[in-house]
C-alpha cells in the first residue's frame, strides 16, 4: 500500500454559506448550523486594474481562497508551486462564446477567448502573485478535487516542496446548467508541506482505496458536496475542524477513492 504524507499549513475556503476557513470550522464540525446563501466573490485587489476588469468568477475565487490559505500559513505566494483543479472552465464565458459562434457575428473578443482557457485562473494567479513556479492545471469532472489533491501530494512527496492546491468550480448558466448543473461557486485552497512546521494544522496520509466515499451528516452540506465538484473536499476540512485523529474516504473516480488519515498537529 503506497501512501502519501503531507502537512496542511493553511486553508482557504469560500462557498455558499461558507465565507472563510475560521468561521466555517464551527459549521463543518456541527457546532453551528449551516445556513446556505449565495457565494459572494470579492474583487481581486491584487490584480492590475485591466486584469481585474477582465477576470471571471474562477479568478476571483482562487485568488480569495489561495491568498487566505497562504496568509494563514505565513508564506509568500512568490516561488510557491500551485495545483489548480476544476471540473471545467468559466461557464458564463463559455456560454457567451458559444452563443456568438452560433450567431451571424462570430467575432468573439480577445478577452472572452483568453478567459475561456481552462488555465485562465492559473495565469491570473501567476500575474497577481508574481510567482514563476510551476502550476499544474487539472480537470477530472466530479473527481477534480481528488485529482488535484493527488497531484499536490506527489509534488510535496516527490519534489520535496511546499505547494498550494486550489480546487474551485463556478456556476454554469442556462442552457449549459441543464447539462452540467453546478449551482454556485465553491473553492478550497490547501497549503501542503513535506515537513512538519510550527504552523502545521494537521498531518494527512492518503492512499487509494476501493471503499465508498464518506458523506456529510448535515443534509444541506451533503447536497453541497454532491452539487459542486470542489466540495468533494469538504469531508477533509470537516475532519481537520474536528481536531482529532480521523480516518475518512474522499470521493474520487468511479473506480477508486482516496483514504485519508488525519492527525492534528
Amino acid at each position, binding site marked *: 500500500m503506497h501512501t502519501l504524507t503531507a502537512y496542511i499549513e493553511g486553508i482557504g475556503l469560500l462557498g455558499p454559506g461558507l465565507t472563510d476557513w475560521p468561521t466555517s470550522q464551527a459549521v463543518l464540525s456541527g457546532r453551528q448550523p449551516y445556513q446556505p446563501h449565495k457565494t459572494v466573490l470579492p474583487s481581486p485587489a491584487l490584480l492590475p486594474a485591466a486584469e481585474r476588469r477582465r477576470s471571471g468568477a474562477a479568478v476571483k475565487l482562487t485568488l480569495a481562497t489561495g491568498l487566505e490559505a497562504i496568509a494563514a500559513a505565513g508564506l509568500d505566494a512568490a516561488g510557491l508551486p500551485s495545483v489548480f483543479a476544476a471540473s471545467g472552465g468559466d461557464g458564463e464565458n463559455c456560454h457567451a462564446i458559444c452563443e456568438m459562434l*452560433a450567431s451571424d457575428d462570430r467575432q468573439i473578443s480577445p478577452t472572452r477567448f483568453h478567459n475561456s482557457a481552462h488555465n485562465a485562473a492559473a495565469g491570473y494567479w501567476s500575474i497577481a502573485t508574481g510567482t514563476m513556479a510551476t502550476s499544474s492545471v487539472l480537470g477530472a469532472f466530479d473527481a477534480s478535487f481528488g485529482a488535484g489533491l493527488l497531484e499536490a501530494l506527489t509534488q510535496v512527496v516527490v519534489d520535496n516542496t511546499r505547494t498550494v492546491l486550489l480546487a474551485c468550480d463556478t456556476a454554469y448558466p442556462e442552457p449549459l446548467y441543464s447539462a452540467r448543473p453546478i449551482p454556485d461557486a465553491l473553492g478550497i485552497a490547501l497549503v501542503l508541506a513535506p515537513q512538519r512546521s510550527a504552523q502545521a494544522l494537521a498531518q494527512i496520509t492518503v492512499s487509494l482505496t476501493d471503499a465508498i466515499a464518506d458523506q456529510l451528516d448535515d443534509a444541506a452540506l451533503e447536497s453541497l458536496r454532491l452539487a459542486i465538484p470542489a466540495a468533494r473536499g469538504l469531508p477533509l476540512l470537516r475532519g481537520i475542524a474536528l481536531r482529532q485523529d480521523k480516518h475518512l474516504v474522499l470521493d474520487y473516480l468511479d473506480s477508486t477513492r482516496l483514504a485519508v488519515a488525519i492527525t492534528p498537529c
Partner: protein
Amino acid sequence: MNPLWLSHFTATSSIGRGLDQALAALRQRRTGLAPCAFDTVDLATFIGEVAGVDAVQLPARLAEFDCRNNRLALLGLTQDGFAEAVRTAIAKYGAQRIGVFLGTSTSGILQTELAYRRRDPVTGSLPTDFIYRTTHSTFSVADFTRHYFGLTGPAVVVSSACSSSAKVYGSARRMMAAGLIDAAVVGGVDSLCLTTMYGFSSLGLISEQACRPFDAQRNGISIGEAAAFALLERAPEHLDADAVLLLGIGESSDAYHMSSPHPDGLGARMAMQDALKMAGLKSSDIDYINLHGTATQSNDAAEGKAVQHVFGSGTPCSSTKGATGHTLGAAGGVEAVICALALQHGLLPAGLNIRQLDPTLDLDYVLDNREQPVTHILSNSFGFGGSNCSLIFSRAD
C-alpha cells in the same frame, strides 16, 4: 529523476496516421497544412486537419463519448499497435496500476458549439442528445481512454493551453515516483473547433498562409489537430540502444500576461534550465531543440532569446509546426513523438515554410533535414497564461 522509458508511442496529425507516415512526411519535408474548409468557418487561413476523423466510430458501449475529440483520440490510440501495448501493460501491471494523463485545451467543445445551433427556439434549451460530461467536459478524453481500456488507476486531464501535453509527463513522473502507479498512458488530443479559430483570429494571431515559424515575415499560427500517446514505464536495466527515455522536465510560469509571452522569455529560460538540471546535462549535451515555434511574432522572438541565453547560437533547432500546424493542447505530445523519431532515426527535421530566417534571432535554425547521430533532445512547449514546459528525451545508449 529516474529515467522513464517511452516503451511505445504514436502520433496522428495532419502529416499522417501513425509513425511511418509522420516520419515519411518529415523526411519529405511535407506539410499537412491546407486552406481551411472546416465546418462553416469563414476565415482565410490554413489548418492542419486530420483526414477521416468523422468516419471513426466509437465502440457502441462508449457511444455517449462520441465527439470529434474522442474520435480523433480513438484514431490515434489504434495506430502503431499502441492499444495492444496498453493491454499488454494491463496484463503485466494490473488495470489499477496504470495512470492516464492526457492534455487537451478545448476537449470536445465543438459538440457544444454545434448544440448551440440547435437550441429550442422557445425555451433556449440545448438538444436532448447533447451530453456534456462525455464530450465537452475537460476530462472527457481521459475518461474515454480509461473506459476504452478498462483502466481503474488515477486519471486526469492537464489543461494548461498549449503546454498541456508536455506537462502530462511531469504529472506522470511524479505519480510513478510516488509509487502509486507502474505505468502511464500520457499524451494529448486536441481537435478543430470554432472557439480556437475565431479566438486566435480575434487576437490577430492567425496567419492567412501556412505558418512560417522563425521566418522574418512570420505572421501567425496555423491551427492543427492531433492525437499523440506514449506509454511510460520505469526503465529496465537492459534496453535496446535506440530505446527512448525521458530524462528531464522543467516547468515554470511567466507571471507576465495572459496571451503574450514574457518578452525576454524569462519563464521559458527557467523551464529549459530546470529540465537540463533534472537530466544532469549541460546545454552543450543537447543535439537538437524542437522549438515551440508557433510563428507568432512574440513567441518566436521570446523563445529565440531564451534559447540563445541558455544554449548560445550553436545548437541545431527547428519548429515542426510548419508541418503539423499548432495542435495546441496536443502539441507537446506530438512533438515528444517527433523527438522520439528524431532520436531513433538520427534525423533533425527541417523547419518548413521559411523564406528568410529572422535575422534578429542568432540561432542554428535547421533549414534542411540533417541526418546525424542524435543522443539528447530538448522539446519546448509554452502556453497561454504563461505556462512553460521543457522536456528532455534521450537514446538509451
